[in-house]
């Protein structure tokens, strides 16, 4: 394989994982914008997506489109439950406490997933037959296309939702100023619920897209979730556009880094980048220069 | 003589809005300089730029003979410049006394190592801090509640606590963001007297305030801002009769009416009588 061919190979695998990071990063941003907390359970929504898809396809024998829709619904429900049953019940409004409720929920969910689905890796079939495709000398599978295509569709869908629907606009209003939004008659609590459901659904989608490539397991979301967070920071935490750019950028960086240097430290790259960004440009690569300093 | 605080051409824009547009003024030690102006005139932004909370996009700030533009807040505190906040910022988890003890942070020194080892020097300093803080509380009539959690104080007491805390270290200058907002008449009067006492001890005070009666009564100098620009400066009497100020406050009418005039009417003469 020539150098150019190898490079395009890295680019394709980088874009694929990058798309998944972008979806996870978007989930982080959604919840951060409405609640100002970091949701540590975001990665577990991703695990859940893969596991649910496995059960609905292999266990219940459903057709893929139906299984896909039900998985989105299922992970959105778990997201909503996190808001309604845990965060909203909290006695304390301290951000530290709220963030740690999501940490606890993450540990709890992981424990539940382990009981229900066991510890082993579960193979999920690709969305379409695995005939290898070739482009610019690189070989890739249709699943790569599914990942990038559905991610783009999800981003477009989010854009439409936030700019064109009343509910989407109400959620943006809550993100900007919850008190003013409440005074305008917006049901703030409902919007918080929606943002968790939406983040859950996005996590579920990310999980379904990646598990045919990685297999599903109860811990698959932990590392991918953290990388999604790194992507969100990279793009300027809270910015949707930044999340997408940060996700794709991180995916590419990781795949190039692993290919050109060493794959042993592939997982380390994201966190080194995260620390570097926090050090050099805390407002993120795309954020404006107004990062809140203490 | 060089004024204690010299502000030159301060500018800061948020997006397209010019919150401050080339504002310059001086403030002396042992004097009260009031900054007034309609809401959104840039008064709090000016305080935030001077106190290191914001970095101005243009302009320079000089304090006690050296440039301090954009200097971090804790460094300014060590130079003797501190501030209070519009929305109260008492340390609600700390006791009232401890709040004021934090006020002495800038002029005391014992660090982590001596704290961990509990060195005699550190214990001596702690005793001195506690005594000085208690004296500051007595000055403002808060000694009786010294050991209560600050979060339990009434709104008026918390306002006084902020002032006690800011004055505890005997700073050269304090920036006060609306020190009497939300206080009743008696509390406002007491606060005004406390400010005048601090001035008479030589502290320079810069206050942002909407209470015109108080401003006109205690100020030595008034700076008027409107839409980010300084439109007038002078002693209370000059400012009250400045046509541009009247236009800004009263929407173009030339004769003083309503609250502004009522405050003006009680003027500096009344203030001097009260404190003579």
């Amino acid at each position, binding site marked *: 394989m020539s150098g150019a061919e190898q490079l395009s190979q890295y680019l394709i695998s980088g874009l694929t994982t990058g798309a998944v990071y972008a979806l996870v990063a978007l989930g982080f941003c959604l919840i951060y914008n409405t609640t100002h907390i970091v949701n540590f359970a975001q990665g577990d929504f991703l695990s859940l997506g893969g596991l649910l898809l496995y059960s609905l396809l292999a266990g219940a024998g459903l057709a893929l489109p139906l299984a896909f829709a039900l998985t989105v619904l299922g992970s959105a429900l778990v997201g909503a439950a996190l808001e309604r049953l845990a965060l909203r019940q909290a006695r304390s409004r301290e951000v530290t406490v709220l963030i740690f409720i999501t940490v606890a929920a993450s540990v709890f969910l992981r424990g539940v997933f382990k009981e229900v689905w066991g510890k082993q890796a579960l193979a999920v079939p690709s969305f379409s037959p695995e005939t290898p495709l070739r482009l610019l000398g690189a070989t890739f599978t249709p699943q790569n296309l599914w990942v990038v295509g559905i991610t783009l569709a999800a981003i477009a869908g989010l854009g439409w939702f936030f700019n064109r629907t009343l509910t989407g606009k109400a959620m943006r209003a809550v993100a900007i100023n919850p008190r003013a939004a409440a005074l305008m008659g917006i049901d703030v609590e409902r919007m918080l619920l929606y943002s968790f459901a939406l983040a859950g659904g996005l996590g579920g989608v990310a999980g379904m897209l990646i598990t045919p490539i990685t297999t599903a397991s109860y811990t698959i979301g932990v590392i991918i979730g953290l990388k999604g967070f790194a992507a969100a920071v990279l793009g300027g935490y809270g910015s949707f556009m930044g999340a997408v750019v940060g996700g794709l950028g991180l995916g590419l960086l990781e795949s190039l880094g692993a290919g050109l240097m060493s794959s042993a430290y592939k997982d380390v790259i994201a966190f080194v980048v995260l620390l570097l960004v926090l050090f050099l440009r805390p407002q993120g690569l795309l954020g404006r220069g107004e990062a809140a300093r203490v | 003589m060089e004024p204690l605080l010299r502000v030159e051409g301060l500018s800061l824009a948020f997006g397209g809005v010019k919150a401050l547009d080339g504002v310059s003024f001086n403030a002396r030690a042992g004097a009260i300089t009031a900054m007034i102006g309609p809401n959104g005139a840039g008064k709090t932004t000016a305080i935030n730029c001077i106190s290191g909370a914001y970095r101005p996009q243009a302009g320079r700030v000089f304090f006690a003979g050296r440039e301090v533009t954009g200097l971090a807040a804790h460094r300014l505190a060590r130079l003797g410049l501190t501030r209070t906040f519009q929305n109260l910022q008492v*340390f609600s988890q700390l006791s009232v006394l401890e709040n004021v003890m934090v006020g002495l942070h800038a002029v005391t020194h*014992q660090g982590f190592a001596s704290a961990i080892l509990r060195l005699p020097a550190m214990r001596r300093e702690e005793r001195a801090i506690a005594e000085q803080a208690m004296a500051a509380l007595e000055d403002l009539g808060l000694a009786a509640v010294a050991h209560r959690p600050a979060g339990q104080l009434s709104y008026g007491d918390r306002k006084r606590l902020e002032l006690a805390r800011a004055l505890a270290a005997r700073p050269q200058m304090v920036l006060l963001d609306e020190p009497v907002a939300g206080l009743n008449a008696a509390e406002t009067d007491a606060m005004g007297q406390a400010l005048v006492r601090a001035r008479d001890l030589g502290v320079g005070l810069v206050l942002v305030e909407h209470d015109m009666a108080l401003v006109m009564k205690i100020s030595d100098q008034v700076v008027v801002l409107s839409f980010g620009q300084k439109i007038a400066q002078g002693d209370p009497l000059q400012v009250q009769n400045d046509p541009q100020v009247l236009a800004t406050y009263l929407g173009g009418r030339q004769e003083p009416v309503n609250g502004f005039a009522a405050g003006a009417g009680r003027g500096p003469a009344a203030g001097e009588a009260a404190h003579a």
Partner: protein
Amino acid sequence: MTRGGRIFALQLAALALGVLVMPLLVGNPYYLNVLNVMALMVIVVTGLNLLIGFAGHISLGHAAFFGLGAYISAVLSATYGLDPWLAMLAAALAVAGIALVIGLPTLRLAGNYLVMATLGANLIFTTVLLQLDQVTGGPSGFSGIPPLSLFGQAVVDDQSFYWLVWAAALLGLVVARNLAQSRVGRGLRALKDAPAAAAALGVDVARYKTSIFIISALYAGVAGSLYAHYFGIIAPKSFDIFVSVELVTMCLVGGMGSLWGGFLGAAFLTPLPQVLHVFDEYKDIFYGGVLLVLLIYQPQGLAGLWARLRARRPLETA
């Protein structure tokens, strides 16, 4: 001495007495071993609690600092033949340096970036341990670590290590309390409450937060070194992110930011796996569930519950 100072002295004396008589009550050396692990956890969690209580930040990387202390001590003493005490000192310096590198960029920022940075650092640490197997022994671990020695005697058996580790734990509590009752402690509590006001009064917020983070990491590093020289063998699994979550759980169960919270949490949660045999299988559900319930309904932990019960008694001085 202030009233608070007397109460602390009494509590500490009671604990010291408990530490003294415990070996007489415990016949089985296995339980002595559990008590030793408990003391190690008391040290780590007390340090973690300093960070939470003073800076309002949470670290999910304290298992990595614990592990760094253990591995650096192990490699320097076993591979390079350095005296274990010197190895421990070197490990502490390295831990402080790494904490500085992580804390400096993240603690300047508003919001809880430290959580993710420490979590990321913990993942990097585990990866490096597994990959650098020539140095660290990889997944199977590192063995043959020499014990510490005191007065010419090797601290090998459970009984002698018991005295050493509990003395260290008590010292850790005294240091934490000294910090709390000082000018810097007051500055730290102030900046947690209202950072802008603390800065305006002269508290260097970023430096203070970074300092307390380093001190907090040092507690973990020292405990890690003690751990390595006590067990003689260490493996990456003892220092992964799940252990970090357990440490934070102990902190929250005991009482976030309370002086005795670290002790209470570690004392309560360390023996649990030994008591509940089915525990390992349901560990995540248990830890997650306990944390959830506590955080939602009793965010002040056991220490908060204790304070509330005491407050219910009629006040002597009303």
